[in-house]
């Protein structure tokens, strides 16, 4: 086929592009995946005891804010990485700054705590299961975000996969807070961050294979 023939065929095949389609796809993906994550957390893991009274604690909202901020910033990175020629700009700072603030908070908290209390501030009661459960809760979101990225045209596949995975991991962590009893910033600084990094790692590993176009 000559290039001119190809061009004629593509022009004939051209249909109007709906600018609202990505937004609709995103809403659809979230509408399908988010309820699965929430349902799994509520029905299988169970809602944490005294969720109502926890809502009054500032530490509860620090945790929510942290997860939401990382998820939103990672999602912005993923969107930019999914558009050819679009620069990341300062979007990664939106991921890095909340983590640094949390770590700073954790260090201050640990420094002020009496030494015997430090171990429980770091490990809480659920340290060993926390990252795995966050990854598990994130799984539906992970597939949704990777599918959304696949509909676009990322040129840095590993990074795009990682950003989509991180956005899913952080949103999954936000859902997981319905179940999780841990509120100490020192706990979140390690185990929540690890839990978010697991889907990010999976995305980085899968990206080059799954996101090619």
């Amino acid at each position, binding site marked *: *086929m*000559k*290039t*001119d*023939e*190809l*061009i*004629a*065929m*593509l*022009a*004939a*095949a*051209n*249909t*109007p*592009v709906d*600018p609202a*389609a*990505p937004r609709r796809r995103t809403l659809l993906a979230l509408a399908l995946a988010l309820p699965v994550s929430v349902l799994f957390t509520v029905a299988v893991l169970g809602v944490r005891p005294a969720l109502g009274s926890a809502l009054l604690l500032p530490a509860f909202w620090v945790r929510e804010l942290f997860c939401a901020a990382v998820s939103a910033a990672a999602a912005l990175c993923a969107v930019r990485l*999914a*558009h*050819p*020629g*679009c620069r990341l700009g300062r979007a990664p700072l939106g991921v890095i700054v909340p983590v640094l603030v949390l770590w700073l908070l954790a260090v201050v908290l640990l420094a002020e705590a009496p030494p015997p209390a430090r171990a429980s501030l770091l490990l809480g009661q659920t340290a060993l299961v926390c990252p795995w459960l966050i990854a598990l809760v994130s799984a539906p979101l992970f597939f949704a975000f990777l599918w959304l990225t696949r509909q*676009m*045209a990322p*040129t840095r596949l590993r990074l795009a996969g990682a950003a989509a995975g991180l956005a899913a991991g952080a949103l999954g962590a936000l859902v997981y807070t319905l179940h999780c009893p841990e509120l100490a910033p020192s706990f979140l600084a390690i185990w929540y961050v690890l839990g978010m990094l697991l889907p990010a790692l999976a995305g980085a590993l899968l990206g080059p294979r799954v996101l*090619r*176009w």
Partner: protein
Amino acid sequence: MRTSEERLRELLLLGLAGDAQAYNVFLRELGAHLRAFLRRRLARHPDEVEDLVQETLLAVHNQRHTYDPGQPLTAWATAVARYKLVDFLRRHARTDLLNDPLDEESELLAASDSEAREARRDLARLLDDLPDGQRLPLLHMKIEGLSVQETAQRTGMSASAVKVGVHRGLKALAARLREHK
């Protein structure tokens, strides 16, 4: 090349709104720029240039929905071309070709070459391997330049089936090009 940027961007925006004529001109002019851009980078393999021009045009078409109107067209088109070029080089495992710097974003529209050489790989043959629901609408569009509506009437398929078939067919074609060689 500010004028090229503006002109091509306008044509693409018309194309995205459904104007086949403007879109045809857009692809033709972008194709000429791509040819010059890729020829410089594949200096040692002039035979492969036209293949890659076609592959990149197909990618531009398949990914046209990822162009953000607020973004310079040059940045977008260069990123698509560069991605296809790197993918091509990786497939060929000719790392020596990567010595050429790929980072000049303003360069794509600086030169243009409208003289298409013969492609080595025949897209038409790859097209023949597609399932009928994808192949037939594409054939009508290729040979007679029929629109979606006209193709639907001619084949007895519904317009939405034609659209889906064309969309999937062109994606499948791109996937086959990727696996080719």
